[in-house]
């Protein structure tokens, strides 16, 4: 059986499913090549392998991040690298780019064995990386960033050839049909444009393989469309792309083949045209998922807990009124930039408001600081986990207890590390945060586990009203499901949740009511009744 050997810690696949997966294996002969690379080499006259990572292993402390992983990429394909967070995707890519050194295994690029010591060497070797955290200098121009580290110079004085580089940059941008001023400061660019500069930088260094790590996470639908056009364009030019994403739809839109990693093992490589979403998810999580979303009884909520009346913010939000009920999940839909996050921040006291009233449990309250929001039992899980949600250098327990240090203090107001660890361990258990210790730095956790820590922060302070801004962004399928279950459990306990999400299916599956935003205004507020169609919501989101 070529596929899904069950050496993972996941429960064994039930008999019914096993049958299915065997059939799957027979149906898709290309899977085999990953396990029998010689086959592939024989076919190499037709489809040449540009990258061949063989038997890669890497151990961090006591955890085996990668265990004899094979990864083969053909020249000129868009190859999806899939897996839950912690499956080993990033580690594999970091080994490819020289950030880490493999304990075992070899890497071949175009048939030649390579061993990069750092990203500079891998860049020279033709591997370009576009990571989630954009690595650009905001105070420099687009051209300067694109050529950073390999400026073109001339003459004995090594004078920098700005004009030449600007022309080259402009020419390149034109070649991928993207408009960008070569002298514009990067700080003035949108996230999508910044990403383009990163891609440009990779290509300026003559990269033959480009790794895109979650490139679409921060992009709008329109920007994603543009990005895909560029990816196809690059493919035509013979550039190979390794594409990491949690959005499986995208894999079907632009990828040729997909390799699934699970718990540090390579599970299989599939032709995208011959598989489907359910199968990919099954391979990723090692079990079949009933659906993407847990079932939820909608429309059963209690009395109002939070009322926002006629909220205005300077220059943006106009006349926002909404009501949140006990035990309700209120979905906030709308395009990126329509004012969803701004509502969240205004309710949480993080942004200044112009006017507007807040009522909590029917009582009028003033919320003009995050302290007051906290005192009124409101908690915000911000969109930007790493810069606003968590102090990544701090331990899990320090991050959790920061919302209510009083609870951590003993009789004399003395912080007790024991009490802190106990509190943290309670949430580690309840929310099943995967970590060896409550003193682990949150930096080392996967996205899903980090998000759980942010949630735990507010649960620790007993927040009754939770505002979750894109709670599942950049989180893998399994962790998403856990977050959904958690949300359902919280509202069952009588908490109320405002969920902001760009993914309509998520909004539809979980919300009792849906508020649609457009350009700083509430366009509509609808009950999520069974017959409601996404189009009904989207028409309001588009103006």
């Amino acid at each position: 059986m070529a596929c899904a050997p069950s050496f993972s810690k996941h429960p064994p696949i039930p008999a019914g499913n096993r049958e299915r997966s065997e059939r799957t294996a027979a149906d898709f002969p290309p899977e085999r090549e990953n396990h029998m690379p010689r086959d592939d080499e024989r076919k190499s006259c037709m489809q040449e392998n540009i990258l061949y990572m063989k038997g890669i292993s890497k151990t961090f402390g006591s955890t085996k991040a990668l265990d004899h992983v094979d990864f083969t990429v053909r020249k000129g394909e868009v190859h999806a690298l899939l897996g839950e967070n912690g499956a080993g995707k990033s580690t594999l890519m970091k080994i490819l780019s020289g950030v880490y050194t493999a304990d075992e295994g070899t890497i071949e690029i175009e048939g030649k064995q390579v061993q990069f010591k750092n990203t500079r060497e891998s860049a020279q070797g033709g591997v370009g990386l576009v990571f989630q955290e954009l690595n650009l200098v905001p105070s420099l121009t687009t051209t300067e960033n694109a050529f950073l580290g390999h400026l073109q110079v001339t003459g004995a004085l090594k004078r920098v050839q700005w004009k030449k580089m600007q022309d080259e940059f402009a020419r390149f941008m034109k070649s991928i049909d993207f408009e960008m001023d070569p002298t514009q400061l990067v700080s003035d660019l949108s996230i999508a444009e910044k990403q383009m500069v990163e891609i440009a930088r990779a290509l300026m260094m003559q990269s033959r393989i480009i790794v895109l790590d979650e490139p679409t996470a921060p992009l709008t639908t329109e920007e994603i469309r543009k990005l895909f056009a560029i990816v196809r364009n690059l493919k035509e030019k013979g550039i190979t792309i390794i594409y990491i994403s949690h959005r499986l739809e995208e894999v079907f839109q632009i990828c040729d083949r997909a390799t699934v990693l699970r718990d540090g093992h390579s599970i299989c490589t599939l032709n995208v045209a011959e598989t489907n979403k359910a199968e990919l998810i099954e391979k990723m999580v090692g079990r079949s998922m009933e659906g993407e979303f847990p079932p939820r009884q909608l429309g059963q909520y209690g009395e109002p807990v939070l009322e926002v009346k006629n909220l205005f913010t300077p220059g943006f939000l106009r006349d926002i009124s909404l009501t949140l009920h006990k035990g309700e999940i209120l979905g906030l839909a709308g395009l990126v930039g329509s004012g969803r996050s701004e509502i969240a921040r205004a309710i949480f006291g993080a942004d200044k408001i112009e006017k507007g009233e807040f009522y909590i449990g029917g009582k009028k309250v003033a919320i003009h600081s995050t302290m007051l929001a906290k005192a009124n039992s409101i908690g915000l899980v911000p969109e930007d986990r790493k810069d606003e949600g968590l102090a990544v250098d701090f331990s899990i327990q320090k991050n959790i207890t920061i919302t209510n240090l009083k609870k951590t203090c003993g009789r004399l107001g003395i912080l007790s590390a024991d009490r802190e660890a106990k509190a943290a361990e309670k949430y580690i258990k309840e929310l099943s945060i995967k970590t060896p210790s409550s003193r682990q730095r949150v930096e080392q956790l996967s996205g899903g586990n980090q998000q759980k820590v942010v949630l735990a922060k507010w649960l620790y302070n007993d927040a009754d009203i939770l505002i979750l801004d894109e709670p599942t962004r950049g989180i893998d399928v399994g962790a998403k499901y856990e977050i959904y279950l958690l949300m359902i459990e919280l509202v069952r306990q009588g908490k109320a949740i405002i969920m902001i999400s760009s993914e309509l299916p998520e909004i539809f599956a979980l919300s009792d009511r849906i508020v649609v935003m457009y350009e700083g205004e509430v366009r509509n507020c609808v009950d999520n009744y069974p017959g409601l169609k996404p189009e009904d919501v989207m028409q309001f989101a588009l103006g």
Partner: protein
Amino acid sequence: MKKKRDFGSFVKSNIIIVALAVFVLLFSVSAKGFLTVNNITNILLQISTYGIVAFAMTISIIGGEFDLSVSSLMGFITLLFTDLAKKAGVFPAILVCLAVGLLTGLLNGLMVSRLKMNAFVVTLGMMMFIKGLALTYTGGRPNNFPNPALNSFANGSLLRIPTITWFFLITFLAVHLILRYTRFGRNVYATGGNPTVARMAGVNVEFYKMMLFVILGFVTSVSAILMSMRLSAGNVLYGSDLTMSVIAGIVIGGTSMAGGSGSAVRTFWGTLFIGVLFNGLQRLEIQASWQDVIKGAILIMVISMDTIMAQRKVRKTIVRD
């Protein structure tokens, strides 16, 4: 995770203690009278006045801010104290001086936390302002204030430890406890580590930022009062090298200027190291100008070793809480 306590890793994470031991050994052999009870007491005395301020500055740096104005504040307070003590009596003088220290800190703090001004600029301006004030106050002349009772208190000792050093040790203990075991301390770390995250967790970031300066102003004036008692004088020049020495001690101890990490214990070792270094070089009777050259070189060396070690060491996954 089991705790490894081998010598190698101890050296790597405690460069400062190793460096201190090396220099103590070096000076004991080469400098006459270095390793005597008298001289050790002397070193403690030398570091105490500035050391008191170093602990308060440690809080500021952990909270992500720092204050240049303490150097001229110290000189100004010594003048103010000696002058007022002569005119109005010792206790009113102490009260006024402490109030002035608090107010200066409050002013700095409000400008930084409320008006979001840059601490470097604010405290640089404050430094010049106070310096000018001090110079106009007495026209640059030092004040003499011989008071036998105060003098014998400040120069006295208890259990063979000088009074000033007691203040130093008490401040050390207090700051250590505050940083490690109080909500205030934890919130200072959070504020310095990432102010946005702290704010989004409902921490009153502005208050903590302000308090960093208030504490520093207060502690500086305590230290200045002790200094003028000990020297029976006030002088605009007292404390002129305070900021630099204090920050050197903090950084060499291993507290990061980036904020969010560090401890009073680190500052203790750093300050002690600087004290030993300065004292040892004096005892070796090296020409004063060369002493500065050597001091600078050694400071850079120790800090670079620490930095190199930190880069080599794989980042610790488990944080010591």
